């Protein structure tokens, strides 16, 4: 339509209150008809100054904050933070603690990807059905979290030096039941959507990012892998003993929304594989090392990164030998992935922009911190 008629481009505010912005996020788009000519992201509606607040609290007290950044992947956030502090203080984690951490991080990935896949399909207009199916499976993962940590969403489970509690004895059978069902569920979602012509038409070629652009934007996680780059912190910079497990990195073809979708589905399959292996080889021994409550790490700085569900989740902690971090910084994957939004939406339609936003899988709590 553009060029056909001398129309006036007008500004459309998508958000902060809009069904598809996954929280309070706002895109100011300039549209010409349905075509987007300019997009500007407005963030900060959920800013809670976590990084500043963390400087006033002890290292252990900061763990609940990390729950509340990415509230859909609290385990991964816990893990990233405690890894950073452990690196700073030179604390070793027992074998069993590491294995439990891997199990939890992978279960969290499954739960988070369930949410991502469901919300994304909701954005394409599959009216609530996939999202309800995904929630059904996510509930079962959250049940496992409740069983272990007592909380479903903000688990606060990882501790410096290990994990808060050992696994309860009913955890393993329940997890195995879940693992037995999950591949079937993933096949179900795949059967509903992946071969669907309408879904393909809506997502194929939408928001495509070349490998070069993706690297230039410093993207990570499924966004980067969708563009065909084999990059996974679990392989490239293993932590918690990930090098022991056998799994593969799924990568996409052209970096469009559909590729990110199938990459996420495949990652769920791989996570099932990892949890299976970790459960099979679950070592005995203590789940945690004793760490003084008022931890005073030696002066210095540490950066630890984990492969969160949304990408490279990094924690940067500086210590001045005080009881609380001197500086605390989070590298939130969806914030950085979001920076490519303008690149992906301009030139597309409003409907495409929504699909692209859904395919990034943002969590506003993490973006605004």
């Amino acid at each position, binding site marked *: 339509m553009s*060029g*056909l*008629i001398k*129309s*006036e481009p007008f500004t459309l505010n998508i958000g902060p209150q809009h069904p598809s912005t996954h929280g309070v996020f706002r895109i100011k788009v300039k549209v010409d008809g349905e075509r987007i000519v300019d997009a500007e992201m407005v963030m900060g509606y959920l800013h809670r100054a976590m990084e500043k607040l963390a400087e006033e609290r002890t290292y252990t007290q900061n763990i609940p904050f990390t729950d509340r950044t990415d509230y859909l992947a609290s385990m991964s956030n816990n893990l990233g933070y405690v890894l950073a502090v452990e690196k700073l203080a030179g604390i070793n984690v027992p074998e069993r603690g590491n294995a439990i951490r891997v199990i939890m991080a992978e279960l969290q990935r499954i739960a988070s990807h369930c949410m991502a896949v469901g919300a994304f399909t909701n954005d394409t207009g599959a009216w609530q059905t996939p999202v309800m199916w995904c929630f059904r499976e996510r509930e079962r993962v959250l049940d496992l979290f409740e069983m272990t940590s007592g909380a479903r969403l903000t688990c606060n489970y990882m501790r410096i030096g290990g994990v808060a509690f050992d696994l309860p004895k009913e955890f393993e059978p329940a997890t195995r039941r879940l693992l037995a069902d999950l591949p079937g569920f993933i096949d179900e979602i795949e059967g509903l959507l992946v071969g669907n012509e309408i879904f393909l038409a809506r997502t194929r070629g939408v928001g495509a990012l070349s490998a070069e652009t993706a690297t230039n934007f410093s993207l990570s996680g499924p966004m980067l892998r969708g563009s065909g780059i084999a990059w996974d912190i679990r392989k490239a910079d293993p932590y918690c003993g990930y090098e022991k497990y056998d799994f593969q990195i799924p990568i996409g073809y052209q970096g469009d929304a559909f590729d990110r979708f199938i990459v996420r589905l495949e990652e769920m399959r791989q996570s099932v594989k990892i949890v299976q292996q970790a459960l099979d080889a679950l070592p005995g021994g203590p789940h945690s090392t004793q760490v003084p409550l008022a931890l005073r790490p030696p002066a210095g700085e540490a950066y630890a990164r984990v492969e969160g569900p949304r990408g490279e989740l990094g924690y940067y902690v500086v210590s001045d030998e005080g009881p609380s971090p001197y500086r605390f910084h989070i590298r939130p994957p969806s914030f950085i992935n979001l920076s490519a939004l303008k690149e992906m939406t301009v030139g597309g339609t409003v409907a495409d922009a929504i699909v692209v936003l859904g395919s990034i899988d943002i969590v506003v709590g993490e973006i605004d911190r």
Partner: protein
Amino acid sequence: MEGFGVSLAFWILTGVTLVAALGVLASRNLLHAVLFLILLFVGMAGYFVLLSADFLAMAQVIIYVGAIAVLVLFAVLLTPRAGRNNGETRMFLPALLLCGTLLAIILFVITDTNWAVADESPSVTAADLGEALLSRWVLPFELASVLLTVALVGSIMLVRSREEEAEDAV
């Protein structure tokens, strides 16, 4: 033409169509004018039913309300806000005078003529109409289809942008 219902329908339709036509004339908002125009078209279809032209009444609604009115709405939306003023030119009074005179003449002719009126209601089915169109009026019918094709091609040519023409030239 008998029956109280028919008379009632006639007067209601007359009221509706005249109000609608006056609304088109009077409303300053072009969009309101279009909506009044649609009301007029629907009223017209009612008249057609009264005149036992069922098929044409339905065609009237489909073509005028479903297509032409929607086209006009499209055109209104494609012009900017400033272009949605439905004001009159300075020629309003002369035009009104002229049309008033014309109306007086026509009304005089209508009332003065002694019309030969056939009283039995003719029944024209869609089949009859189709028969007539494809036998007696086949030439105008074909011409009309050519006209539609020309209009189609012509309007597409008119709204093509320079960029598209440049694309096609390559």
